């Protein structure tokens, strides 16, 4: 049912009729596969595919992006191809989101699948350059990249580029600016990076999980991939499950899996839950009741105004003050503004201030109105979606913690625990 318990025989058989349940990034043995021989023994060689084969595979499999937005990979490949000119491909492993660990897991446990996927997309768009953009903690991957190159399995040279550990570092234009030697901050769009990205060239930026999945699809075929998940979003995805669960960590489950099952994969809740955060700090909160019936697919979650995003799931136990959590994260998100767009630079700190006052000071209902007004002032008024995502996190939180808001306005709080659940990286 879930990939943690799935068998993964994994050898490429040359036919696309495999009927193993999709999944396969984690498999039955979560141990790291770092040496090339071990990787090839487990997964077999990449079949030799032409550019059109790769696009067709991605399309037939229905493989969508796992960096958050869920956009079909094949359409992005076609956009880059149609832009013409010498293309660039980037494996995005920045994972700026502090509550997410799945890309880090992949780069430490399944790096060869990511690098295989990077070669496949490079082939698809006939790229001359390929980059692996990830935190400096992954610099050890240089050995693997060199080893693959020496073994002759990587046709396109791969360069590792360091991603700063900041929230917005992984936004695609920020990634491109950083690789080009500039600051890891977003650019205004248009132009889209598929048209003009790194050094003005058409650029494909794909999340490392998307690429690792493509490497599995190339070996096992689209039908295998489609044997799990939903019609719109086939296959499985990685979830980083944190908060009040017995075994916080990275798990894998098909799109559409009930949220309660995803929590069970991480050992299940350690106590009664009051809320669950989905999709990280640009994501949405669900009440415990909603979480009990929600399924982890884009179409199901849309009913709650939520999305699986890049797979962050954080369970919040009763007794933790949701407003204190909102406050800490909004302060962090304000800090993480790249500071180049006026409404984001000015608005997010003001919003954070108001949330702090709601969470910690004696306050009145005017704060709540002011928060709604300020939120309206930042949404849609930036070069990237940082303001929009931050406001989504806040608004859904205020809805889910409405009772707590009422209590705070009455100078009371239900808090019984001082746990700080949502992780942040403050720089000051």
């Amino acid at each position, binding site marked *: 049912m879930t990939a943690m318990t799935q068998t993964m025989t994994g050898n490429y058989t040359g036919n696309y009729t495999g009927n193993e349940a999709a999944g396969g990034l984690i498999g039955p043995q979560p141990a790291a596969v770092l040496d090339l021989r071990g990787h090839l023994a487990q997964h077999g060689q990449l079949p030799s595919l032409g550019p059109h084969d790769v696009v067709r595979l991605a399309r037939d499999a229905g493989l969508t992006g796992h960096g958050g937005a869920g956009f079909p990979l094949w359409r992005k490949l076609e956009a880059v191809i149609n832009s013409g000119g010498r293309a660039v491909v980037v494996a995005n492993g920045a994972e700026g989101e502090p509550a997410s660990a799945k890309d880090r897991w992949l780069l430490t446990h399944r790096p060869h699948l990511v690098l295989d996927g990077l070669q496949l997309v490079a082939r698809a768009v006939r790229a001359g350059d390929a980059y692996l953009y990830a935190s400096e903690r992954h610099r050890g991957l240089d050995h693997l990249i060199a080893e693959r190159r020496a073994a002759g399995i990587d046709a396109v040279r791969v360069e590792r580029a360091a991603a700063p550990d900041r929230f917005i570092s992984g936004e695609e234009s920020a990634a491109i600016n950083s690789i080009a030697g500039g600051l890891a901050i977003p650019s205004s769009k248009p132009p889209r990076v598929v048209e003009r990205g790194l050094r003005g060239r058409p650029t494909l930026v794909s999340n490392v999980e998307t690429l690792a999945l493509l490497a599995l699809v190339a070996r096992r075929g689209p039908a295998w991939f489609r044997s799990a998940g939903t019609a719109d979003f086939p296959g499985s995805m990685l979830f980083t499950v944190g908060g009040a669960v017995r075994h916080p960590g990275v798990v894998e489950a098909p799109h559409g899996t009930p949220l309660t099952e995803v929590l069970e994969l991480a050992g299940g809740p350690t106590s009664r839950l009051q809320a669950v955060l989905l999709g990280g700090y640009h994501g949405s909160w669900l009440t415990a009741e909603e979480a009990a019936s929600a399924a982890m697919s884009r179409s199901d979650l849309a009913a709650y105004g939520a999305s699986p995003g890049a797979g962050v799931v954080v369970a919040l136990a009763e007794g933790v003050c949701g407003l204190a959590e909102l406050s800490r994260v909004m302060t962090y998100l304000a800090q993480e503004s790249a500071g*180049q767009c006026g409404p984001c630079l000015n608005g997010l700190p003001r919003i954070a201030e108001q949330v702090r006052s709601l969470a910690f000071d004696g306050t009145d209902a005017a704060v709540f109105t002011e928060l709604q007004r300020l939120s309206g002032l930042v949404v849609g008024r930036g070069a990237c979606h940082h303001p929009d995502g931050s406001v989504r996190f806040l608004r859904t939180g205020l809805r889910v913690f409405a009772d707590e808001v009422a209590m705070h306005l009455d100078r009371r709080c239900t808090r019984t625990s001082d746990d700080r659940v949502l992780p942040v990286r403050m720089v000051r």
Partner: protein
Amino acid sequence: MTRLRIDWTACDGRGLCAELVPELIERDEWGFPLISDAAVPPGVLVHARRAVAACPRLALSLQAENA
């Protein structure tokens, strides 16, 4: 139809545009332009073009959109 668009990374928020096209542009409390979502009416197009040309940061543009 045509809309005004801002490059937020370039705009300095001094508000020259709001003076030139008050019909379409207000300023928020920090001075940054608040642009009406509506299409630019034909009668205002001349003013809008003038604001685009006058923006010292080349942050303002007119975008033609379909439908």
